C-alpha cells in the first residue's frame, strides 16, 4: 500500500503544540494514519461521534469511512475482525470504549492475537493495537473504572503500554501501531485532560519496553505508571528534603524494563510500587518479584505495594479511598524508608 498524501495532522508541521493526553492520542492516530495507509481505526462510536472521549475526533472527516469505522456493539467482533484485518495486510487500531468492556474480547486477545505468530512459527503475524481508556477517579458509572492490566501482562505474546504524559501518549502509540505484534494500549482517562505538554507535530516514537525515570532520588525508588504517576510525583515532592524519592514511570508493562527497575532498586535499596488495579496477583507483585530477583541483596526493606484494594471497584462516592492517594503513597514510602 502506498503512503497517503503527506498532510500535517496539525497546523504546525515541524513545530509543537501544547496538547492534553487525549489530544496527543488523537494526534498520534492521525499522524500514523497519514504515514501508512494500512492503519485504520475501528470501534464503537469512533466515527461521527469521535469516540466517547473524542480520541478519534475528526478522523472520519480526514480519512473517510473505510479507515474510521463505527462497528456494531460487539467487542469480540471488533477484536476478532481486527485480527483478521491484521493478518491480511491492515494495521487496525481497535478502540474498546472502556477497559471494563474488553472482557467479551478476552478470548480473541489471549487465544489468538497473542499467539498467531508463535502458532504459525512466524508465518502469520498480528500487528494490531487495542486501545482502551482505563482507571478510576472520574466519578464514572460502575464497570467504567477498570484497571486490570495484569491480565494482559500475564499473557505471553501481548505487549502492554500505558502512557502518563501527552508526549509519551503520542510516541508510545506510534510505536505500538508500528510494532509487528499486538499491543494493548491503556490510556489513563483520569488525566486525559489534566494538563498540557508540548508535543511535536511530526511523527515520532517512544520505544516500547523502556521505563522513564521521572525524578532522580537516592533514598527510595517508586515504580508506577499511568494516572498514578501524578500522585506519586506529588508524594515525592511532599517528602522532598526529608526523603529523596526516585520515581520511575514504567510506561511499558510488557515487556517490562527489568533493567531500569533493577538499577534503581540497587541504587536506593528501598522500593515501592504504585498502581490502581487490585493488589493480589497484580502488576505490583511482578515488580516485587523483579526487584527481589535482581536486587535482593541490596534490599533494605520489603517492596511496598501501594495499590487498589482487593475489592470490586466501588461506586464513585468512595472511589478516592480505593485509589492510592498521594498521602497514602507518602505514608508507605516513609515506611519503606524507616524499615
Amino acid at each position: 500500500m502506498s503512503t497517503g498524501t503527506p498532510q500535517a495532522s496539525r497546523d504546525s508541521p515541524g513545530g509543537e503544540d501544547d496538547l492534553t493526553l487525549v489530544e496527543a492520542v488523537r494526534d498520534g492516530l492521525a499522524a500514523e494514519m497519514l504515514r501508512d495507509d494500512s492503519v485504520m481505526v475501528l470501534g464503537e462510536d469512533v466515527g461521527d461521534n469521535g469516540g466517547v472521549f473524542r480520541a478519534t475526533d475528526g478522523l472520519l472527516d480526514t480519512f473517510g469511512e473505510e479507515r474510521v469505522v463505527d462497528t456494531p456493539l460487539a467487542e469480540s467482533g471488533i477484536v476478532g475482525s481486527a485480527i483478521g484485518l491484521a493478518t491480511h495486510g491492515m494495521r487496525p487500531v481497535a478502540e474498546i470504549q472502556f477497559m471494563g468492556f474488553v472482557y467479551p474480547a478476552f478470548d480473541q486477545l489471549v487465544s489468538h492475537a497473542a499467539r498467531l505468530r508463535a502458532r504459525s512459527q512466524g508465518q502469520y503475524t498480528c500487528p494490531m493495537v487495542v486501545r482502551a481508556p482505563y482507571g478510576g477517579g472520574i466519578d464514572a458509572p460502575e464497570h467504567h473504572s477498570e484497571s486490570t492490566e495484569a491480565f494482559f501482562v500475564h499473557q505471553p505474546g501481548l505487549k502492554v503500554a500505558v502512557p502518563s504524559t501527552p508526549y509519551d501518549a503520542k510516541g508510545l502509540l506510534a510505536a505500538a501501531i508500528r510494532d509487528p505484534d499486538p499491543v494493548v494500549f491503556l490510556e489513563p482517562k483520569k488525566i486525559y485532560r489534566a494538563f498540557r505538554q508540548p508535543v511535536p507535530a511530526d511523527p515520532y516514537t517512544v520505544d516500547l519496553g523502556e521505563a522513564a525515570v521521572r525524578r532522580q532520588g537516592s533514598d527510595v525508588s517508586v515504580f508506577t505508571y499511568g494516572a498514578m504517576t501524578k500522585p506519586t510525583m506529588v508524594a515525592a515532592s511532599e517528602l522532598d528534603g526529608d526523603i529523596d524519592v526516585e520515581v520511575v514511570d514504567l510506561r511499558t508493562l510488557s515487556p517490562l524494563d527489568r533493567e531500569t527497575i533493577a538499577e534503581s532498586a540497587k541504587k536506593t535499596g528501598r522500593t515501592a510500587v504504585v498502581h490502581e488495579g487490585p493488589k493480589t496477583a497484580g502488576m505490583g507483585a511482578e515488580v516485587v518479584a523483579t526487584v527481589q530477583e535482581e536486587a535482593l541483596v541490596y534490599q533494605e526493606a520489603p517492596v511496598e505495594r501501594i495499590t487498589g484494594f482487593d475489592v470490586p471497584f466501588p461506586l464513585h462516592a468512595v472511589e478516592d479511598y480505593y485509589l492510592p492517594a498521594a498521602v497514602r503513597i507518602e505514608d508507605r514510602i516513609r515506611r519503606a524508608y524507616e524499615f
Partner: protein
Amino acid sequence: MATDRHPRDASIGGPRRDHPDDGCIVQLLDEDGHLRQEGEPPSIPEDELLELYEGMRFARRFDERALSLQRQGRIATYAPMRGQEAAQVASARALADDDWIYPTYRDNAAKIVHGLDPADILAALRGHQSGYAVPDGVNVMPEYIPIATQIPQATGGAWAETLQDPERDPDTAYLCYFGDGATSEGDFHEGLNFAGVFDVPAVFFCNNNQWSISTPVERQTRSGTLAGKARAYGLEGIRVDGMDPLAVYEVTRRAVSKAKDPAADELRPTMIEAVQYRYGAHTSSDDPSRYRDGVDEEWADKDPIPRLATYLRDRELIDDEYEADLDDRIDAEIDAAVDRMEAVETDPAEMFDHVYAERTPELADQRAELERLRAEYGDEALAGDGQ
C-alpha cells in the same frame, strides 16, 4: 387480544424488511391518541390506564429532575429515557409483583414501576453502592451496564424457576430489558439460544430506541428487524410500537402469560422488539448534535404521553385539574426521593463488607490499613480535592 397488525409504514421506522412478516408491528393507539380500530377497545381496566399514565408522567418528570441534578453535580452520569416511557412503564406494569426484571442503566421507569425506590436509583447515581441493594421482596436485579450480559443471566434465573418444581408450570416470569445495540453482542445470542433450548419462562424485551450511542440501528445489523432475530432460536419475535403504551401492555401481558402457561405447540420465551426513539442524549456526557440533527418530526409525533393523554381525555378519565394535581404529587414524591438520596452516605470501609460472605484475612488487613490511614491523615487528605 385486540391488536391491529398492519404492514409497517415508513413512519414507524426500523431497518429494511426481509422476512414475510417483518412489516407487522402491533399498534393499538395511533399517533393522535385514537384507537386504530374504533369499536374494539383494548381490555385494559380504567384504573390500569391511569396507572400507565401516571407512571409515564412520573418517568418523564424523574428524567427531567435527574438531568438537572446531574447538571448541578448532585448525581453523576445519567442516561435519560425521554420518549421511551411507554415501553418501560407499560411492560413493567404488565408483570405480576413476583415476576423478575433484569434492567439496564436506562430502565429507571421500569425499575420504579416494579417497586424500586427512586431514592435508591438516585443514590446509586450519586455513587452510593447501597442504591444497588434492592430491598427484599422487590424482584429487580441491580442494573446491568456491560451490554447484553444480563441476557444469559435472565435465562438462568427463569430456568431456575422451572427446575425448582419441574412438575408444574412456573408462576414467575423473567423480563429482561436490553437495547438495540445489545442484539449485536454474543451474550444476546447465547442467552436467547439457551432460553429456547431449555424453554424457560422469559420475555426478552428489546428497547429499540434506534440508537446505540451514536450508532443508528441500521448500522448495527443487516437483519430486516430485530424481532426477526428471535427465529434463529426458534422463538417468537414480535414488534410493537414502543411508544404506544396500550400495545406494549397487551403484547407484554400475552408474552408473560405464555411464559407461564404456553399452549401445547408454543415455547415459553418471546422476544419483543419495542420500536421507539430516544429523544434525549445517550447520557448526560453525550452530545447528540455530533451525530444527528435533532429529533425527526415523525418520531416527535409519536410521543407516548400526549397520545395516552388524548385517549384518556377523550374518555373523560383525566382533565386539567387531574393533571395539575398529578404534577404536584409527582413533584412531591421526587422531592422526597431527592431528600432521601442526599441523606445517603457511604462509609468507605463498606467496600470491604460484601466481597465475600466472610472477610478474608487479606481483606481484613486492607480494611485496617484504610482505617489507619483515615485516622492518621483524615478523610480530606485521602479523598479530598487534592486528589
